[in-house]
């Protein structure tokens, strides 16, 4: 089982969700986040004072998938989320030790 963490532009959430549903991904967690990579922020003005905002709003998706689904899921995310500009985001993959369904305590792939 592999965990996919994807940080994407906020405006790309709908497209990414749709793309993942289309390939059969049924579970995910969506978080609102702020952050930056190499993308510079923007400046705001309040009462004549300049503020540099470098923590930019992002969306983070998390999902745990069976290993044979991972490549398709990564492709779906990349194609839906890419604009070609700096700030598109990143995807991280990591191994998951165990997954448990709380309702009936199923474990492993059956729990995903």
């Amino acid at each position, binding site marked *: 089982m592999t965990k996919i963490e994807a940080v994407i532009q906020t405006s790309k959430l709908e497209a990414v969700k749709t793309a993942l549903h289309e390939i059969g991904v049924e579970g995910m967690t969506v978080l609102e986040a702020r952050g930056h990579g190499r993308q510079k922020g923007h400046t705001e*003005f*309040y*009462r*004549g004072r300049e*503020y540099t905002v470098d923590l930019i709003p992002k969306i983070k998706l998390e999902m745990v998938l069976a290993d044979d689904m991972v490549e398709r899921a990564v492709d779906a995310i990349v194609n839906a989320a890419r604009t070609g500009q700096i700030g598109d985001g990143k995807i991280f993959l990591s191994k998951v030790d165990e997954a448990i369904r709380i309702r009936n305590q199923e474990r492993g792939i059956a729990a995903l």
Partner: protein
Amino acid sequence: MFADKRRINVLLTLLFLCIAAYPAISQTSSSLTSITSAGQTERITRLEQAVTEAKSSADNSWMLVSSALVLMMTGPGLALFYGGLVRKKNVLATMMQSFALMAVITILWALVGYSLSFGTGNSFIGAFNHIFLRNVGLQPDADYSATIPQQTFMVYQLMFAIITPALITGAFAERMKFSAMVLFMILWSIVVYDPMAHMVWGKGGLLNAALGGRFPTLDFAGGTVVHVTSGVSALVCALYLGKRVGYPREPMPPHSVVLSFIGACLLWVGWFGFNAGSALAASPLATSAFVATHFGAAAAVVGWAGAEWLRNGKPSTLGAVSGAVAGLVAITPAAGFVSPMSALAIGLIAGVVCYLMVAQVKGRVGYDDSLDAFGVHGVGGTIGAILTGVFASRAINPIFKDAHGSATGLSIIDGNAGQLLNQFVGVVIGWLLAVVGTLVILKVVDLTIGLRVPEDHEIQGLDLSQHGEEGYNFEVSA
């Protein structure tokens, strides 16, 4: 034979009716002759009384509405305006400061404040003839306003006494102890506000333009009494208390410009009560002040936003609403004295100058006047009071009369350049009273209960540390 009898009967009946009616007719004509003098005089007197009551009724209804409008300026106007400008962790504490004053100043005013401001004392302060609102009943006080009950006048002035200290809270936002603020404001209201109000508006006041003060200062609705005193006091407080932890290194942008926007709009609308209501009647002068107020605000929006657009490339919403407030402040002393075109000029100047104060001067000098109470009210009020000596016109308000009863000039454009000197005197007295009074009170409060919250409370936020509350509980938990 029968026809003759009937005809005679009819004639006799008619004759009888005429005879019967005669006393009634003769009664009326003899009544008319008897009521010509005494009765008519009585009717005219009653008619005059009714007209006076109708006029008083119109004035009183406008003045009660104005009083409500001015109270609205404090709550929620100023509370929202300031509340939106602070960080989220201090929103309630900031609003609570304004709200507490709505309650505390009211009680103080009733007990002693009104008497000290508008009682009969000397050139500098009132006295105790109206303590506990004694003799402040429903009959007019002719010196102040001949057509409205004195209680209306008292409650209208109360709303000014409430908002003036509330303005100062902008200077020490996010770091002042609530208990210290309450004590400070009680003392400030007595030591600074009441004397200034008395000098400019009270009977025998040194600066009273309407009642023959020694240095008559034209201040229609409180440019000196409200804005100069509070704005300058704000500067003193900001300097004495020191900067917020992390200022100016850490960014501290407003947590909700939306709230500030709503507050500023409520201030604009409420200001019609503040300025036009200062005519103390539903009169053409009130109309003049209403129009001048609105025009001053509008021109200042253009001034501030325009200056910001040039300097930063974008006009901000916060800048635009701040501009409106600056214009309203500046037009306050001038509202009932200037023409609509002059009001536009005053507003435009105030918008640009206050923007520069806030955007350039404050940063360069380095004091932490958190919400620009000095930059907008202190400076705006000073500009407005001086410009009143430039633009005031007897055609709008013939307040100065010579020995023959003809109106004399009010300003530079009205042929009385000397009035500018009187305006300076009023402004300088306002500054001095504010500086000295505020310093003394700050020292007293600091030595007794301390002014500032401890650093960890300031970092935690005043909502939690002073009031045990959080402004927003948008937590996800069910």
